[in-house]
């Protein structure tokens, strides 16, 4: 496992921050973010896939009332791929005409999806060598979050209760109290390295750190290891894999 990894630094790998607005579709956005990133890594081709198709064609129906990333991948497999965001744009509510998957050309598809071991070292290793992974966390501390690394405890962020899916895009270490500009509030504490995960959210780029947030790495903060799930996008022609920039 490298000391750090940030897929945002690789050109054209991570798509822009999405905004779920008033639709409880973080599960569809996280899955779409995952598929877009893996397609960019494997095919060196930038696509933006249709979240609306995942909402409309999800087997549980009414994807704005919540859902699960594994259902999103099942939908992609059942429909043999996904249309583009351009053809099938996001509306933030179910389409009155239902699932329109058959109507549009597919721009990306997956071969499988798997859940990784609930171990942060394993997750970091996979992230660095294969690409971003969806995780589902307890969102409680995000309501008032502005920036920096959240070091949750099991009392203020129950790791067993997870209710928000996001995309894991990297990890690193922060020097406490210097980089985050919080010297004043932390001056009384000895400065240490704070290992963190970098997570891509779907609440727009104005929220958090330009749409991202960071969680402490090493204590299963907010249940980040509960459901590490990723699609598999195989490459038609075997090429040497690229790895995550440090």
């Amino acid at each position, binding site marked *: 496992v490298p000391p750090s990894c940030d897929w945002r630094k690789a050109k054209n790998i991570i798509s822009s921050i999405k905004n779920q607005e008033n639709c*409880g579709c973080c599960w569809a956005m996280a899955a779409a973010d995952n598929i877009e990133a893996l397609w960019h890594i494997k095919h060196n081709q930038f696509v933006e896939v249709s979240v609306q198709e995942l909402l409309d064609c999800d087997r549980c129906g009414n994807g704005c009332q919540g859902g699960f990333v594994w259902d999103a991948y099942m939908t992609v497999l059942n429909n043999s791929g996904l249309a583009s965001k351009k053809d099938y744009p996001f509306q933030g509510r179910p389409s009155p005409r239902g699932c329109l998957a058959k109507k549009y050309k597919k721009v990306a598809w997956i071969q499988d999806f798997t859940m990784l071991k609930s171990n942060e070292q394993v997750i970091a290793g996979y992230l660095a060598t294969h690409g971003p992974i969806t995780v589902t966390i307890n*969102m*409680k501390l995000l309501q008032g979050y502005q920036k920096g690394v959240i070091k949750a405890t099991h009392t203020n962020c129950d790791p067993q209760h997870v209710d928000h899916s996001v995309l894991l895009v990297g990890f690193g270490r922060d020097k406490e109290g210097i980089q985050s500009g919080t010297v004043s509030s932390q001056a009384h504490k000895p400065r240490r390295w704070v290992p963190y995960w970098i997570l891509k959210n779907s609440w727009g780029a104005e929220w958090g750190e330009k749409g991202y947030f960071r969680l402490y790495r090493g204590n299963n903060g907010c249940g980040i290891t509960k459901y590490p799930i990723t699609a598999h996008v195989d490459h038609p022609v075997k090429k040497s894999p690229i790895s995550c920039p440090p």
Partner: protein
Amino acid sequence: RDSLLKDAGPRPLELTEVFKLFQTKYNRSYSNEAEYARRLDIFAHNLAQAQRLQEEDLGTAEFGETPFSDLTEEEFVQLYGHQRAPERIPHMVKKARSRKWGGP
């Protein structure tokens, strides 16, 4: 900041000013006086909560005002989490949903 974050009792002037700035920043309006007062209370509670989290946090996180500062924790999870929610979302949130970015 302490005077801003009293959880109970009459609202200090500064808090209502801060709340007014919040409303302007996030394009908020409330359907009546009672709703306004209720949201102001929730706002004060959330800022106090943010200060507590900031003091407790052992990382480098900063907590404070966000677009969700006038939502209760339940509304926040219901709107932005992916738990299967009951069909009806409380009326006042639905009414305010017309905000372009999707806030209450």
